[in-house]
Every structure is written in C-alpha cells, then in structure tokens.
C-alpha cells in the first residue's frame, strides 16, 4: 500500500468532511439575513448552535494533517496565499465572535450588528474557500524550490471568482436543506423550503457554467478522467444534484440533505481527481509541481500518522454521531440556546 496515496485520500476525506459539515452551517450564515424577524434568526442560530464549533475542527485537523503528511504543500499554500489566508482566518474568527456574542445582550442594534457580521463573515469565508479551490484547479506559478512566485492579483482570476460563487451557492443550498430539516414546521418551514428551490437553481446555473469553463479553458485537469472509468463519479454527481428537487417536491427533507451532502463529497472527489497526482500544480512548469511524493513527510511519519488516523478516525466518527444524535430534533426556541 502506497501511504502517499493513502494520505492523499485521507486529506480528501477530511476536506469532504469539512465541506459537508461546516458547509451547512456556513450556508445558514449566508442565508441568515433573509430571516424575517428575531425569532427566525434565533431559530437559524440555534439550529447550528451546538455543532458549528465541532464542524470547524475538521478544518483545523485538515490543516494539521496537511502539515504532518505534506509539509511542503502546507508551507507553500499558506505562505503563498498569505493575504487570502489572513482574510479567511479573520472571517472565521469574526464569525465565531458574531455567533457567540449576538445573543448575550438584549438590544436591537447590538443584534443587528452581529447578524450582519455573521452573514458577511460566512459569505466571505465561503468565497475564499471556493476561490482557493479555483486556484488549485488552475495551478499557481511555483519556482524550483516549490515557492509561490506570483502575486495576490494572480489569485483573482475569473475562474477562481466563478468557483467562489459556485461554492457560495452550493453552501447556501446545503444550508437551506439543513434548515429544512431543523426549523419547526409552519410558515418558517415553508419559506425555508422555498429557499431550497432558489438556491438549487442558482447552484445549477453556476455548476453548468463552471463545468463548461473547466472543459474549455482548463484542459490539463481532464486527463485523469479520460484515463480512468471516472464517468461514474460525474454521473453520480449529476444524479445527486438532480435528486434534490425531486426530494423537495416529494417533501423528503432528509433525502434532500443527504443528496446535497453527496453532491459536495463528489465535487471534492472530482477536485481531488483533477489535481492528482499533484497537491499543487505549477502553472508555469509542470516539473515544479508539488506531487504527493515530492511534498511528503518521511515514510516513517506517514506510517505513524496513518496508525494515529486509524485509531482516531473511528473515535471522531463516534463522537460526531453521538452529538448529532443528541441534537437531532427540530429547534425549539423555549429551550436554552442563543
């Protein structure tokens, strides 16, 4: 078993786990300002209240795992995307602050302030994630040592902006479908269901645009698909996306949410396959790309980390299941919360 490949897959799992889990609470944040009144917004916040913090741990662990398994990629990405990473961290800190402090004081303007803060930071963080993915697809200029030699403006291409918008639409849809599961039945539930339709529509349009753009302008991402029977990933992805309106129509919120989770996992899979075997593709010279072999830690560390992951991941899944099971019911505002 090639541990480099194993770690590439494990990082994909962590990234997909992060996108599915933090994706819906970022999505709730993106939609937050559409909440009509104080009660609705409190319901939104309480729907993600007990879990958003744990969802962010997937990102932290992704960071730690990337550092341990592929330190060269960790250092190149974070130092190369310096300004973007700082903005992302700023958005994530600001978002946590908004969630935590909003409900602590009973004052209209205080809450308004944090409502706006929560929404903007959620949109900002999602946009930066999406643009990061876009830049990953395009590749960035690297020198022989594997250092980023471009500038911040290189990272703001139309393609990366398109990927950013796609991610915002995707998480908004995912968040709407999550709310569909969690808000109390009644008027608010009808409205949230409607958001599910709208965000799905926006996502579909951006998805098609991004696919066409990728096929025309980023041919270097195609060969992996041509070489392997990967049509299946794409077909599954299309099915998952197509299943969402069917479930909404048939009032099966659980299935709709699972479908959008699946769509996200498959998109992360497509992204990973497009990168393969690189972690960072050098757009200027393929010889400088950081492959899973060039960027990796020593074989011994990859092995030890794999053992740690084998022990740790079942525990992580167990905790996560316990927590989601504990908070499985629809939100009830009478109980304590935000």
């Amino acid at each position, binding site marked *: 078993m090639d541990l480099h490949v194993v770690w590439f897959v494990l990082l994909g799992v962590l990234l997909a786990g992060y996108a599915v889990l933090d994706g819906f609470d970022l999505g709730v944040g993106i939609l937050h300002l559409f909440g009509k009144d104080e009660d609705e917004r409190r319901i939104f916040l309480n729907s993600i*209240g*007990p879990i958003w*913090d*744990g969802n*962010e*741990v997937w990102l*932290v*662990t992704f*960071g*730690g*795992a*990337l*550092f*341990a*398994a592929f*330190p*060269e990629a*960790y*250092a190149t*990405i*974070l*130092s*190369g995307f*310096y*300004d973007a*990473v*700082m903005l992302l*961290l*700023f958005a994530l*800190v*600001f978002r*946590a*602050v908004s*969630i*935590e*402090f909003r409900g602590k*004081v009973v004052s209209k303007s205080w809450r308004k302030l944090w409502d706006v803060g929560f929404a903007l930071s959620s949109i900002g963080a999602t946009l930066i994630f999406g643009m990061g993915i876009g830049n990953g697809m395009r590749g960035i200029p690297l020198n*022989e040592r594997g250092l*980023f*030699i471009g500038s911040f403006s290189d990272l703001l291409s139309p393609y990366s902006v398109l990927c950013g918008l796609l991610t915002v639409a995707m998480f908004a849809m995912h968040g709407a479908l999550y709310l569909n599961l969690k808000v109390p039945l009644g008027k608010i539930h009808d409205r949230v269901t409607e958001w599910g339709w709208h965000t799905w529509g926006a996502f579909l349009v951006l998805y098609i645009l991004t696919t066409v753009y990728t096929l025309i302008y980023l041919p270097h991402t195609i060969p992996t698909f041509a070489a392997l029977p990967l049509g299946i990933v794409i077909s599954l992805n299309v099915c998952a996306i197509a299943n969402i309106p069917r479930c909404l129509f048939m009032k099966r919120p659980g299935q709709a949410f699972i479908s959008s989770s699946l769509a996200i996992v498959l998109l992360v899979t497509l992204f990973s396959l497009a990168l393969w075997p690189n972690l960072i593709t050098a757009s200027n010279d393929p010889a400088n790309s950081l492959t899973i*072999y060039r960027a990796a*830690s*020593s074989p*011994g*560390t990859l092995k*030890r*980390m794999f053992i*740690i992951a084998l022990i*740790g991941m079942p*525990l*992580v899944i167990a*905790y*996560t299941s*316990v*927590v989601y099971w*504990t*908070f499985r019911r629809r939100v009830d505002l009478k*109980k*304590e*919360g935000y």
Partner: protein
Amino acid sequence: MILDVVFLSRLQFALTIMFHYLFPPLTIGMSIVLVYLETMYFFTREQVYETAARFWTQLFAVSFAVGVATGIVMEFQFGTNWAIYSRFVGDVFGSALAAEGIFAFFLESGFLSVLVFGWDKVSAGFHLFATIMVAIGSVFSAVWILIANSWQQTPAGHRIVQMMRDGKPWFVDGKPIMRAEVVDFWAMVFNPSMIDRLVHTLIAAFLMGAFFVMSISAFYLLKKRHEEFARRSFTGALLLATIFSLAQLVSGHSNARMVSREQPAKLAAFEAHYVSGPADLYLFGLPTPDGNKVNFGVKIPGALSFLIHGNRSESVIGLDRIHPQDRPSILICFSSYHLMVGIGMFFIFLTCLALYFRIRGSLFEKRWLLWIFVGSVVLAVAGNQLGWVSAEAGRQPWTVYPSLVKDASGQPVLDKDGFLVAKADEGLRTKDAVSEVVHSGQVVRSILMFGAIYALLGIFWIYVLNHKIEKGPPPFSSPPDSARNPLLATGPTPRKRLSEGDES
C-alpha cells in the same frame, strides 16, 4: 531595518499566541471544577451542585468559544509566516499538531456541545460523562502542544537529513535541502523537557481555574450575594489552589534543574548569571541588556548553585560561556521569569494564609483578604503568560534549539574561545525560519487586522463575563439543608466542611 519580516512575524506570533493563551488555561482549570460539581450532583442529587455547574458552564462556554476561534489562527500561522520552519520540522511538529486535532479537538468540541446545550436533552449521567470527556480532551490538547513545543526546546528522536526529490537527493542552486525527520517517535514524544514542562503548564492551568472561581466567589461574598453558592465554590477552589501552589514550587524547581542541563543559556538569562562559577539567586533587580550587571538587585549568594547542584559553591554555566550571537534577551528573560516566580511565591503565601483563616472559620469576615482574592485572578493570568514568555524568549535566538555537544562524562564541551559548543546544524535560527515569499507590508496588515479583532474580542469577552457575573447563578430551588450538608450552613466553619469541599 527593525520592521523586517522576522521582527513583524515574531510580533504577530506573540500577539496571537498570548491572546489565545488567555483562554486555554482558564478552560482547562474550569473543566476540572465542572467535573467536580457534576460528580457531586450525580451522587448527591442536590440542586445546589447543578445550579453551580450550570453557572460556571456559562462562563466556561464563552471562554472556550473565544479559545477555539483564536486557536484556528495558530494552526495556520506556522505555514503563513514560518514557512521555512514548517518545511524543516513538518515531519515532527506537524505530527504532534495533527494528533492534537484528531485526539483532542474532536473530543473537546463534540462533547462541549452536550455540556453546554445538553442539560435538558440528556441524562445527568451522560452529561457528567460529556463533562469528563471535555476535561480529558482539553488536557490531551495540552499534552500534544507541549510535546510539540518541548521538542522545539529540547529536540530528540529525530535526525537531520537531506530531502529526496524524485528518488534523488535534492539540491536547489547547489545547496542541499535539509529537514528534520522522526526516527524514534516515543523519544520525540518524551523529549528531555516534555514531562517537566507539561506538569508545570497543567498545574498553572489548574491554578488559573481555581483563582478565577475564587475571584468571582470572593466578589459575591463581599457584595453579600449568592453567599451559599460562593462559600462553597470558594472553599473548594481554595483547597485546590493551596495544593497546586505548593506543587508548582516542586515542579518549578524540577524545571529549573532541567533547564540548567538542557538549555544553560536560558537559565543564565533567567538569573542574569554572567560569569560562570558559583551562582546567586536574585530576589529582584533590573539587569542591563548585556547581562553583566544587575541594578537595584537583592540576591541570596550561592542560592542558585545550591538549588541546581545542592551545593552553594558549585559552578553554574554563565552567559560568558555562551557565544554572544546565541544569547537570549537577558532583560526579557530575567524580568518575566522573576515576575512569574514572585507570583508563584505570593500564591503560596496567600492560599496558606486564607486556608489558615478558613480552618479557624474567620476567612469570610476578612474583607481585605477577599478583595485581594478578587484581584488575584489577574496575577494568575499574568503568571501563565509570563511563564510562557520566559520559556519562549529563553529559547531565542533559535526556533529549533540545537542540543549541546557533551563529552563522555556528560559535561558540555567548550571550544577554544571558551564558548559552549552546540550542534548548530541541527538547530534553526528564528531569523532563518520565516516565510520566503511574505513581505513586511503583508505582515503589518495582518497584525493590524488581528490587533483590531482581538481588541474587540477581548472587550466583548469581559463585557459578557461581567454581564453573567452580575446576573449570577439562579437562586436554589430547594432550601439549604444544613443538617444533611454542613457545607451549606452559614457562620463559623467546623473542620468537617473542608473535607467535603474537596477540589471544587
């Protein structure tokens, strides 16, 4: 130029880590308090324990959230600002960080949600279990971070090797690309300073939690509010604080001896010990920046030699044996170290005095003493921060500290100029560790950004804390039954109460 990327990155790291580190010791310490309260509730089913646990949980939750938010920044900052360092140590340091994520963070954050939001959703038994898991998670987190940081201080279990590229040794511009790789995982984990430093840090965190509880309880007692609750909380925390203040003295002593063996330059800087030979212990003073003179100093002659070697005339390595370019800042090390020790000594005096009055039954009438306790939480914060400042400033100018070359008898080897010989190619200097592609403008912008949001965060945290403290715990629904539970009784205290208030 003073505003270079190295200086700015160090400033940024100091700012973000010091702000972050306000919260972990507090939450580690408080999680122990919560475990105690919930265990008592589980076995006695007395309302007062549940009320107390719910109250402290609120303060715990808001502090924990700020700790998590500021902690995310730390996870990525190694890569953004210290890319060369990340490439050099990723094999070692990254493993510890990833293990922390998998073993500690998921445990903490998962069960935190049950702890904070699960009161009415799960049974008391499961709630207690969740609280214990949060406490264990936060201790695990400390363990892995201390492993990583101690490895930087006293690296072990690794070797420095040339990286391979496509199966061949990797050169860029003719220079080999080197990095640290783990060869013995357990030697890396149990590196020479790890246990001493972990114990010291955890005790400091427990003290932080205890002084936080005592500060708020003392405030309630002074204001004659929630007195039953406050007496009980104070007594338990006082016992905890007394035990751990004394334990910290033992741990501190063990740490100083470890530092004298592993990082003599650091110890010399702590005590501004310039000329190698018998060493004195300064009670206070203000060293000159070059470290060869201490102004306004009051010292105990030979005391440092005695503490390290058990003999007042034994030689301790001084700064004169350290090459000038390898010396840490004597002013920062000396001041932060002495302030930390001073705070520790004051805590021993304060807690023993308070415990004496508590046993006599007169503690809660001594308003002056309660006021000192209200303010002492600031000293607990300062002690935690200063300890880390001295540990990290004492590591400079290295970010990965090179070990000393020792002879067969274990004595450090001197070169022809009389300086200690370090395995310099195994270390990494701080000035050589920053990101190659980041320029100072970017770092300045990020410092301003984090400075602004952390100031905001700090203000709101204090505001919310104050709000919660003003509101206080809800009144107990069942009247105190002093016959069954003497801790709830008012008036002079029989000795029996102390044994029951253990460790709250």
